[in-house]
């Protein structure tokens, strides 16, 4: 069971990473910066629990708020660039963050063991869970309570005016502006929210894997962050979750029995899914179908 609890932790954490990119994609911003906020959350919360003995809850909170703060700062310059340029600018930002942690060296001896980020040697022994007797099942539950809360918040957001506002900006900025929406406010708020969610995910990541270094937060992980909402579809939060289960659960872990072929199939299956379902696994049609099946005869289709 340990294995499955561990896998569910991974899926939950990656869902948070995906959702942080999802909320930005709703406003039409394709951001590869989420992994940078993920990293900020990871290091901040790791430092708090490992070097200063914080309890996990305040560490998570502070980690996500610090990440959100930096996201807020990035939100403004991000307004000036669109499309491909935003992609490249956010790649550059993530590299920047990675390089910052590459150079970060802050050590402290706690209980006779030297801990803390050690630049390229990494930040190891983030052992809050094990040291406090949390078993993998309890950690999985903890992670999923948080994930469910975030998903619920975003799902509720979609049903409210705020969600419509986000999607309106993503759909057509000119039209949105002409109905009086404040583009700057919407985009910066979305970026900040994305940063907070990514920071939360990063904090959970650091404690689940007990070790982070600058190489962890690579372009590859940034690409995964946008892969989840794109593969899952932007019609709702469940798309991202399904995509994470598809990639982490099926492609990475489920296909282990294929041995060497697993890695070759990884890329190919992504290509296949994108060709078969370009709007995502849960595109508008599937979403409507699910809605009718589970909620019975909706009033109309989902918007966007």
């Amino acid at each position, binding site marked *: *069971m*340990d294995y499955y609890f561990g896998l569910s932790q991974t899926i939950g954490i990656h869902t948070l990473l995906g959702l942080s990119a999802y909320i930005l994609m709703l406003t039409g911003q394709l951001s590869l910066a989420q992994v940078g906020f993920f990293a900020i959350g990871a290091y901040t919360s790791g430092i708090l629990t490992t070097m200063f003995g914080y309890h996990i809850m305040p560490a998570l909170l502070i980690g996500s708020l610090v990440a959100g703060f930096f996201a807020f700062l990035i939100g403004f310059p991000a307004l000036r660039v669109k499309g491909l340029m935003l992609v490249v600018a956010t790649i550059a930002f993530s590299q920047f963050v990675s390089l910052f942690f590459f150079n970060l060296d802050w050590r402290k001896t706690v209980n006779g063991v030297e801990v803390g980020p050690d630049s390229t*040697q990494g930040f190891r*022994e983030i*052992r809050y*869970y094990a040291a406090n007797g949390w078993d993998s099942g309890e950690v999985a539950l903890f992670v999923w309570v948080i994930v469910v809360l975030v998903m619920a918040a975003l799902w509720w957001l979609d049903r409210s005016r705020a969600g419509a506002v986000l999607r309106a900006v993503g759909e057509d900025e000119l039209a949105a502006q002409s109905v009086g929406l404040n583009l700057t406010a919407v985009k910066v708020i979305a970026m900040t929210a994305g940063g907070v969610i990514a920071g939360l995910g990063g904090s959970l990541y650091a404690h689940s894997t007990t*070790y982070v270094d600058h190489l962890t937060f690579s372009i590859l992980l940034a690409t995964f962050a946008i892969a989840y909402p794109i593969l899952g579809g932007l019609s709702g939060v469940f798309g991202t979750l399904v995509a994470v289960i598809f990639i982490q659960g099926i492609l*990475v872990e489920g296909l*282990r029995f294929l041995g060497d072929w697993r890695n070759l199939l990884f890329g190919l299956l992504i290509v296949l899914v994108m060709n078969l379902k370009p709007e995502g696994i849960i595109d508008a049609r599937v979403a409507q179908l699910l809605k009718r099946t589970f909620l019975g005869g909706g009033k109309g289709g989902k918007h966007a």
Partner: protein
Amino acid sequence: MLRKKLFRIGLSCAVATGMLLGLMTVTHAAERVVNLAGWGAKSGVLRSFGVNSEAVYHAAIKEVNDAGGIKMGDGTMAKIELTYYDSACNAEQGIAVARKVASTTQALVGFGPTCSGVAAASFGIFQKKVDDASDSGLQFPILTDTAVRNGLAKISQWTFRNTPNEPDMYDKLFAWVRKNNPDLKTMFGGTETDQGHSKGTYAKVIGPAAKKHGFTWATGEIPAMTGQIAKGWKELLDSSSNWLMNDTNFSVQARKFKKSKADILIVSSHPFTTCGMLKELARQRVKPKVLIGLTSSSSAETMKGCAKQAEGMIIPTSFAPITPQAKKVAELAEQFGGAADLHSAAAWENIFIVKRVIEETGIIGKPGTLQSDRRKMRDGLEALENTVGLMGNIKRVQDEGEALKPYVFVQAKLGNWEVVYDPR
């Protein structure tokens, strides 16, 4: 009459077949299997490490199985079965595999991983101190073959390593260089600063070892360096001319190397950037009197990439095919689709270490005894004072779970790594 005879013949045949089948099942049931697990990088840029380790594990296992297998605690002989997983040099996958092996298989021990980052992450989820009921970490023994970054095994009492001890090797290397070259004075060098192993070993081990044996930094004395391990490592890095592990252009660094006019040059990196740097040094006609490299570059990869430019480079290594055993392993590794080098050679040794521990601690190897067997394996691994290595006796550092492996110094000569000094 005939019908009765036929019936009797038929019945005897049926009974005989039944007995034979029954006997076969019984014999099959008696063929015991002891499960082991291994994991390493089978995908991604470090694939060669995983491929090599897996090849050597299978070679060693065939050797053991052909000789009858392992004698289990209840007297029966069991054959080894190994499943090798891909951890892709990714911390989450490494942890997933460790959990998968520990909680869903009968494996008695895990070999791996390849990457030090994965090791640091996976070891962190293990129970730190045995018998600490408040620690919910994994209770499963690990014996690492490749991940070589300093100080990993002591993260948990369940994790052990059979990897080379670089501080000792480089200390003896510079002592030897000093002895053979009494007039050499200065040194200069660089490393790939975003690779934990290369940078750590360069700044905390190689530099100090050279300083200890009387070599001074070519561009000016570095006061913080006392010759002790890890002292002055930041200042050393600042005074060096460094690069990153996927860099492609070394002209600036090579020029600094040239300007230093140092007697000894140190290039502490893995084959890709080592070759890039050496090629640039050759282009700029930089010829040091002594050229020192990182342990991980004493492999065939460096020869494949830049045999000509590597000519003369000296590296300490814990594996070279100079003993009959080592030669045999090198050949068998090729047969199984890999290569034996200082990283994968440990795989061979690991199989025999585990065989010995099973036989000495009386591990039963049945599903019912799994947890106690794993505990016996852990205790047995910790109790080891010496193990048999392909290059000679390996001393175990018991309180840290590390190894002190015998080593030789090799030098690149005409496309091969030739042993130039054998202190064993």
